């Protein structure tokens, strides 16, 4: 179905992810210049249709990128706030292999945006950090730490529950435990509060004073992520909850036994597991 590939190439052109003039002037050569596009199965006829197009027709919508970027910022407001203090730098995402992968495959732009934020390969030379280098902890800057957290939230929003055998219980993929650099959850909460109830509006407001990142301590922390009324809730799990949430899927009896090992009295074990199921932390 190469017509679908051709249409997706045209989507990349509409987003300015490819050099429209270069593609229309010499489609095969322009696509071959990018390793991930070099082998696209396009016929000579299809390349000819591209070459016959008016390049100006791909530039009629000046806000196409902005609409998608706005949706992405809604999911990564803290990472964006800690990136340069200049959200326009985030437009480099559209020139990345991550964005091309979303368009050409059936990927998630939100997850790909998180991957791109965390990938050093696609950063432009001028794409730096609020505090380059100085705050790096275990290889992660504060911005990257928050990107890890927001990507985990994005994954939780999109998680689909696996089909379990009857009588089995498992941690919900929509309520993951994320391992983060120590201090990430507190930093995230502080910046998120700084951004207020309409974070994207704040990010896009001219003259907005962007928050400074707090230096992170060494080590790691665990964060339990849940989605409540569409909003991410990030909490440090108690030890007993951490122990349960890191268990593998299995028969309900095993979960009851684990609850008892963690201190639940006989009779309370079932209530505890049922309560976690009702809260959406466990699935059946």
């Amino acid at each position, binding site marked *: 179905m190469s*017509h679908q590939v051709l249409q997706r190439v045209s989507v990349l052109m*509409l987003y300015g992810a490819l050099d429209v003039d270069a593609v229309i002037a010499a489609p095969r050569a322009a696509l071959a210049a990018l390793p991930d596009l070099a082998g696209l199965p396009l016929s000579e006829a299809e390349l000819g249709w591209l070459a016959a*197009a008016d390049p100006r027709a791909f*530039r009629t919508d000046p806000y196409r990128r902005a609409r998608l970027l706005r949706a992405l910022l809604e999911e990564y407001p803290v990472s964006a706030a800690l990136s340069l203090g200049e959200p326009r730098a985030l437009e480099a995402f559209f020139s990345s292999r991550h964005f091309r992968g979303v368009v050409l495959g*059936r990927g998630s*732009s939100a997850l790909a945006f998180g991957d791109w934020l965390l990938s050093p390969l696609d950063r432009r030379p001028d794409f730096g950090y609020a505090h380059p280098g100085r705050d790096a902890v275990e290889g992660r800057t504060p911005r990257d730490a928050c990107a890890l957290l927001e990507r985990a939230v994005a994954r939780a929003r999109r998680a689909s529950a696996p089909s379990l055998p009857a009588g089995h219980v498992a941690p919900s993929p929509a309520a993951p435990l994320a391992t983060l650099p120590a201090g990430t959850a507190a930093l995230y909460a502080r910046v998120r509060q700084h951004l207020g109830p309409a974070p994207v509006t704040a990010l896009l407001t001219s003259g907005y004073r962007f928050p400074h990142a707090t230096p992170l301590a060494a080590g790691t922390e665990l964060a339990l992520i849940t989605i409540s009324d569409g909003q991410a809730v990030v909490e440090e799990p108690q030890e007993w909850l951490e122990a349960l949430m890191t268990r593998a899927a299995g028969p309900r009896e095993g979960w009851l036994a684990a609850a008892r090992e963690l201190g639940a009295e006989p009779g309370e074990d079932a209530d505890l597991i049922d309560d976690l199921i009702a809260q959406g932390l466990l699935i059946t």
Partner: protein
Amino acid sequence: MTAPAAPGFTERVRSLPILGVGVSTEYGAADAPGALDPRLLRAAFPDRARFLEVGVEIAKGLDGAALRWAGEGLPTTFHFLDINLDEPEDMTEGWLRAVRDAAAALAPAWLCGDAGLWHFGRRERGHMLLLPPVLCDQAATDLAAGVRALREATGYEVLPENPPGEVFLGDLHLLEFYARVCERSDTGLLLDCAHLAIFQRARGHAPTDGLDDFPLDRVVEVHIAGGVERERGGFTWVEDHHGVDVLPDTWQIFRAVAERAPNLKAVVFECERNRLEDTAAGFERIAAILREAGREALL
């Protein structure tokens, strides 16, 4: 013993109701300041809102205006806004389940919607694209398969619609392309006259070029909408604006179709974000053309 053959389009179309002239809406449209309220329009001019075409994006659901209309048992059609029909993987069981639920609430006469690219990648916020398909033979085959699959999965007639666009790739005329889609999926067409006018201009054709060779008995519904001529960087195109200023090309196409499409059952004036009083001239012209074409049953 062999199972009886399923009825073809020619038989099925006879059982579809004549809806007449209606208006469209989508989530939140009726709540916008100054926007058209379909129920007020129907109260004031019943012949201008005999049915409501509800644009449905499953992630948003149905708004109060649509639910109130359907709750009164008034006629509807279900216009999908989020399915790439040529991608089998886009028709997920979860999406289908939600479509069936929404259809149960609306009780539509049929499903319809632009047969193009609504989104890339997974169905996510910010992806709303609506691009026309590549106008080639294989794309017609793949879209037809999607139309059949959706019809079989929902039990409703599915009418593909020709989308608007600024870039039309492929070697077929848009009407030739959708004639193949209709034939291969054995279905009818929702012909958007404004979108066709956009295509004809983009390709340098006259407004009604290609209609003589198109099987007009496939046209079950038409859309009329205002368009705005735009210019950027020396390139001119028509934006599918949904205002009340309908281009002469669109009227010309509508008249030709009204005169020659025997199975035409529904006409939508897409003017959902306009004030009721501003829509009068458009409705009056639609009625005049239908009368002149001898289509009083649609009034």
